[in-house]
């Protein structure tokens, strides 16, 4: 069964942390991903660039509106994700607890499944 760990971080945290500390954080996360891979639990992993490099889009009444980042009202953003292969929510939570990012942001644990269930 697939679960996703989504890293939810406060907007502005990366800037406050700075590049050098950020690189150390990134390396710790890479180590975590590698360990998951060795255990045969990892299906995918990506780090996500900042909001200013992204955009939001809505189609309403047939018209597409694009809003460029950063988004003034956003307090939180998704910083990255791990796609895992574990049997239960408890196992996913156990891995979330091992994730270094749990120390400085929130790890949201979601089961993979259809949106209509």
């Amino acid at each position, binding site marked *: 069964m697939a679960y996703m760990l989504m890293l939810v971080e406060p907007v502005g945290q990366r800037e406050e942390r700075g590049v050098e500390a950020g690189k150390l954080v990134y390396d710790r996360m*890479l180590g975590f*991903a*590698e*360990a998951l*891979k*060795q*255990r*045969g*639990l*990892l*299906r*995918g*992993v*990506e*780090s996500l*660039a900042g909001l200013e490099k992204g955009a939001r889009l809505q189609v309403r009444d047939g018209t597409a509106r694009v809003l460029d980042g950063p988004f003034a009202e956003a307090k939180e953003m998704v910083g*990255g994700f791990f796609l895992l*292969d574990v049997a239960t929510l408890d196992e996913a939570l156990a891995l979330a607890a091992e994730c270094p990012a749990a120390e400085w942001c929130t790890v949201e644990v979601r089961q993979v499944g259809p949106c209509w269930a």
Partner: protein
Amino acid sequence: MATLEATHRAIDAVWRIEAAKVIAGVARMVRDVGLAEELAQDALVAALEHWPKDGVPDNPGAWLMRTAKNRALDRLRQESLHAKKHEELGADLEALQAHVEPDFVDALVEASADDIGDDLLRLVFTACHPLLATEARVALTLRLLGGLATDEIARAFLVPEATVAQRIVRAKRTLAAAKVPFEVPDASERAPRLASVLEVVYLIFNEGYSATAGDDWMRPALCDEALRLGRVLAGLVPGESEVHGLVALMELQASRAHARLDAEGHPVLLLEQDRSRWDPLLIRRGFVALERCRSLGGSRGPYALQAALAACHAEAREAAATDWPRIAALYAVLAEVTPSPVVELNRAVAVGMAEGPQAGLAIVDALRDEPSLARYHLLPTVRGDLLARLGRAGEARAEFERAAALTRNQAERRLLLERAGGTA
């Protein structure tokens, strides 16, 4: 629209085959693999612009090569390097000083067609340069020689795309900063440099081989990529026995790919695999490569020995027909050539089959204080197996439980706990 799609697919296919040659050919001109890759990418962009309108050329590789080399000449002129480089470039000198005529460049391309093998070889050795960290060599090799995109490499190795991009950028910078020459190492350096290349290729193969059923398809595709690189290498340096040894090993291991996983996607041990699912074509290719290796006098090379071991299994119609004495003898030679506790452990398994579990246990027991095996789950696994066959069930169960605690891999832990449970 259908034509556009078909053209794009054709371009993708051509790129996979030709990318390495184009990069290699340009690298010889500009002496920098990073720049060479950029210029090759420019040629690809040009192909994406022109081929949908003009059609795919009859010789797409030559078109790409010509376009990339044109850009290279432009760049060299712009950067005023030609003054320094004209001696190195030899025949290209006139092209630099004259206005470049398409026919002239065509002639250049044709004249150097025979050299492409040398250029590819230079590219291989450069990408696997010992200055670079192993992950960097792997990423650069897949990029420059495999023609894989950054995201494909990332998915194949289950690392973020940003990490792969970083590794490649840093690798190119390291090579440029150290002014690593674009050349095939000379005889005195050849052996260790070739060993580094073979190590990279086998690393790529093993990464693909360790992929499981639910993984992204890029992962098992790495085996094909490694095999392709190995075969190309065998064609470029046909006189090197260990290259054929590695190719033989990969062909034989790959032959078992369809028998390795059961219906649920769990790994099946070699001795329990359905041998009718082993690929006879790959087995035959493996034997041919092994024979080439032996005819070059390379039977004692590490890859050759591992290939010979794989061949022993491939030859047996069923597990019961395995020539264990021969396997034990091969491990004895491997233990002389590349001694290590792991090799000794494997020898213990073979001896346990050839001469009985007591003989195997004697070898394993001698390894129990080996520090490098202290956290290696296969040591208690093997010991448990031998003890079980000697009827020492209680001790066997303890070993399987110890092994289960040591392995970080879920599927293996499950298997080991099952074995522990089954040992009354």
